[in-house]
């Protein structure tokens, strides 16, 4: 069965670009436009990993990561932050929220896939 990765970003171009990269490597991608939509979709499907942006309307990345990690079935789910941010305090906050790793945009396709392979359970 294909491993499913949820891609959460408020930019549809960025989501499509990540999905294109993941699907090209044989993963199945599910998209959500913010944390709120991400949580709604998690109610009806199971994912193996999440890649999320930080700055988003309705529910931002850190709030989303905390909410996902509070779900018993997703306590150990790998979550990678993919953002334009790069400062240390933001990284620390994401780590505390429960993120597994961090990639600063713009990402390179092979580097993203390298990290996905490495953290996938």
């Amino acid at each position, binding site marked *: 069965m294909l491993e499913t990765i949820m891609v959460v970003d408020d930019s549809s171009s960025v989501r499509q670009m990540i999905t294109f990269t993941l699907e090209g490597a044989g993963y199945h991608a599910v998209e959500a436009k913010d944390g709120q939509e991400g949580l709604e979709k998690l109610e009806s499907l199971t994912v193996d990993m999440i890649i999320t942006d930080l700055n988003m309307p309705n529910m931002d990345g850190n709030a989303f990561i905390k909410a996902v990690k509070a779900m018993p079935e997703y306590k150990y789910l790998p979550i990678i932050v993919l953002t334009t941010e*790069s400062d240390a305090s933001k990284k620390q906050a994401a780590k505390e929220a429960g993120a597994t790793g961090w990639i600063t*945009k*713009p990402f390179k396709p092979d580097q993203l896939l390298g990290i996905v392979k490495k953290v996938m359970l």
Partner: protein
Amino acid sequence: MKEKIIINAGEYYASKDPVIINTLLGSCVAVCLYDPISRIGGMNHILLPGAPDMTKFNDPARYGINAMDILITTMMKLGGRRDKIIAKAFGGAHIIPAISWKYGVGHQIADFVRAFLKKEKIQLVSSDLEGFDIRKIFFHTDTGDVYLKRMKPMKTSHIIFEEKKRLKEIEREIHEVTDIVLFNDVDADKDK
């Protein structure tokens, strides 16, 4: 008096205070984004390292998407709302007459901007794109107004030189290493 900010190719600026952002455009395109509710405005100056492919997301497409994404994100962090943002776009002139306009950098960047805004459902309320003239634009971030001055290409041939120089820098930037951290694995960023 509003503060004046000058940006060059590859740069962007956003503000919640009233400022005038100005830039000189040859084949590059400047996108002015404005949230009329919060009166926050921001502008970039896009130069792409080649023809962007928005279905296969090649380097130029990824570079352009990032340039737009970072401007939108900056405006959101200042208090702007993504769903309120409107756009105005300028530039994309055909400044090297030796090649057909269709293969010209200006047309490619203008096309990219139109495609990106459509995909993101950001309304392009006014634009002055392509053609042959060099443009100088002044964007008022508090009102969303843009003032445009046209110039004949022959008077500003240095802009072709400047854009070429900047393009080389952008091509280098594309190959810079991405910042990657794995929080529970201290060796993660050493072993790629």
